């Protein structure tokens, strides 16, 4: 196997591109550090000085609101300077390649890029071509990975459930196009949950997905049985084109999360969603707003988790904390 470019010579986090290939101990370190930052959001002075003097660029080639905002807040609470650059497709029309864009920005001395891009592998590509002192965080690349989203989901699960080993986790929806699902699967299997299930019609299940260590269900009711955690994925409206699904109506009937179907899950099961939600498509309003939903907590936890990832990648740990490999 090729060396993991996410890690430095000592096995420490240098870039955060994908959950795949990272050890359980490193993921736990991220969660533990995020836990220590979670208090910061509740303090009156909402800042720690870990990244003072550092400049972080949010480089978004794809529209995003929550992810970009939580990255920005996370960076500011670490006392870093933040620049947001939204590059739409018109730059590509002008003929500037991704590498050109990158080299122009690097000439301005930045310390970290937080990248979102429509192409799978874009964050890897950037990490391979940045100057040695620059760190790259993947904020979503094509269908490949969205590792900070997966880690904030893990953070939320651990806060509610305590430990991972006994859990059965069901991921429902468009697995085929979902970078979130791929990163969640890697995180859950690395953290050692009992079982990961993916639930969708065959048109939305990628080929050979079992090789990632999941069980495939096409029947929602069977897949939800005795689940501890149920994660609904966003269904993009454009999936109705291209013969993947007949209609949103039928999808909701068969795969939409409702109180009635969730009765099959464990009584204390939690309901998660990476957002933004389509009410009445993948999830009913009563479930999304109901007592078992932790959807808004996920958003809050995004800040602490992103602070942890940024601090670790930049090599700045809080005082007194060691860096176990």
């Amino acid at each position, binding site marked *: *196997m090729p060396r993991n470019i996410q890690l430095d010579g000592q096995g420490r986090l240098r870039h955060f591109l994908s959950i795949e290939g990272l050890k359980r101990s490193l993921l736990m370190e991220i969660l533990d550090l995020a836990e220590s930052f979670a208090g910061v959001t509740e303090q009156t002075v909402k800042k720690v000085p870990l990244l003072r003097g550092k400049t972080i660029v949010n480089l978004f080639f794809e529209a995003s609101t929550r992810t970009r905002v939580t990255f920005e807040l996370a960076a500011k609470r670490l006392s870093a300077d933040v620049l947001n650059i939204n590059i739409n497709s018109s730059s590509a029309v002008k003929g500037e*390649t991704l590498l050109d864009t990158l080299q122009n920005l690097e000439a301005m001395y930045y310390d970290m890029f937080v990248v979102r891009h429509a*192409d*799978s*592998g874009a964050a*890897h590509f950037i990490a391979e071509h940045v100057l040695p002192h620059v760190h790259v965080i993947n904020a979503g*690349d*094509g*269908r490949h990975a969205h590792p900070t989203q997966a880690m904030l989901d893990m953070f939320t699960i651990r806060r509610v459930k305590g430990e991972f080993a006994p859990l059965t986790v069901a991921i429902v929806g468009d697995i085929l196009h979902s970078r979130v699902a791929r990163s969640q699967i890697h995180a859950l299997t690395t953290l050692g949950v009992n079982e990961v299930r993916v639930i969708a019609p065959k048109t939305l299940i990628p*080929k050979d997905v079992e090789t990632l260590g999941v069980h495939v269900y096409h029947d929602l009711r069977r897949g939800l049985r005795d689940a501890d955690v149920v994660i609904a994925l966003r269904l993009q409206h454009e999936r109705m084109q291209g013969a993947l699904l007949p209609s949103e109506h039928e999808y909701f009937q068969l795969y939409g999360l409702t109180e009635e179907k969730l009765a099959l899950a464990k009584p204390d099961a939690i309901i998660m969603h990476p957002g933004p939600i389509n009410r009445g498509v993948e999830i009913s309003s009563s479930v999304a707003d109901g007592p078992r939903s932790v959807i808004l907590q996920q958003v809050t936890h995004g800040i602490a988790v992103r602070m942890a990832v940024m601090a670790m990648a930049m090599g700045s740990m809080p005082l007194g904390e060691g860096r176990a490999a």
Partner: protein
Amino acid sequence: MRLHVRNGRVIDPANKVDAIQDLWIADGRIAALGKPPADFRADRTIDAAGLVVCPGLIDLCAHLREPGQEHKATIASETAAAAAAGITTLVCPPDTDPVIDTPAVAKLIQQRAQDTAKARVLTLGALTQGLEGTQISEMGALKAAGCIGMSNARRSVANTLVMRRAMEYAATHDLTVFLHAEDPWLSNHGCVHEGQVGTRLGLPGIPEAAETVAVARDMALVQQTGVRAHFCRLSTAQAVRMVARAQYDGLPVSADVSAHHLHLTEIDIGDFNSQCHVLPPLRTQRDREALRAGLAKGTLRSICSDHQPHEADAKLAPFAATEPGISALETLLPLSLRLVEEGVMSLPELIARLTHQPAELLRMEIGTLSVGTAADVCLFNPDEPWELVPEHMQSRGRNTPFAGWQFKGRTAITLFKGQVVFERESPVRKK
């Protein structure tokens, strides 16, 4: 130039020759094999002891990038690379810019190749005008201009009726159609095999059925029209089985495979290695084994390079945004020799797949050392170890996934029409 090639291991599969023999060349042709012709005085004697002497290699698919993409490569640069690789005949597909759908373009390419005089360049004419898949091309004129077959390159002829008519019209002119088997709706802008690697990396996949559906459709049309058809660069085990079955049934079909599909699989993509971005995509180990078996059995009659030289920038982007293809002329022979080393087939069988079998598909009297034929000869040292360093490649394109591979066997001298067009400095001594 009169040449005497001494003491080489002459392998000429067409004539069932595999022996230490001498070879004499005069006036650009093979003058004699084994016994010297009367009153022969060589201008030069080549000591070929330790070398294999075989017909110059024939590559059924090499993109030379001229006309239209001279920033990637030119006919001059790539025929020189071919000479360095022991390849003396290159078949150029019609997706140049402009497309080879008029005699003028075909003649331009042939003229450029003649000017460089490093290798023979044969052209395939466009099966449909502009490769657009709607109007059949002027095949009569293209044949008269030297095109040795018709092809729609990598563009699909989506309309089945147009494909039927094109095949009928090609058959009218006794032309072979060279088919790229791909259903464009099923491949759906994919860039890797639809399988575990595509799933893991989140890259859009091209299913096996994209190839097999197209093979099945075209095979039915071959049966209907009686045209001679050659399936280029098969990538799946299932397609090899379909071709074998059709050959058993007596259909006039043949097929080839690229050298890289005989060695790489989807696993080699690793973490988005764009040098492994090729079309058809690298598939599974099971497919690779079936391609090797199909080659050994003779279902697949030829190994091609599918040479696609690129400028460096073409591979510097996220995987799906990079251009597919490998600069492959210089790895055709070494990758093929690995098949002998790995026990897939014998050396004479392998050389047949690189010489007279593709020549038969082209219906040309090349690819042999028969007395009186053009003296296209490849001399290679089968034991020479070397490492592929992209910076040392002769091709203008340095895009290869085989950088750093250790090979055994390397071209020493290449003769094209009796002229030395390539000679490696160190291992061979002049006399």
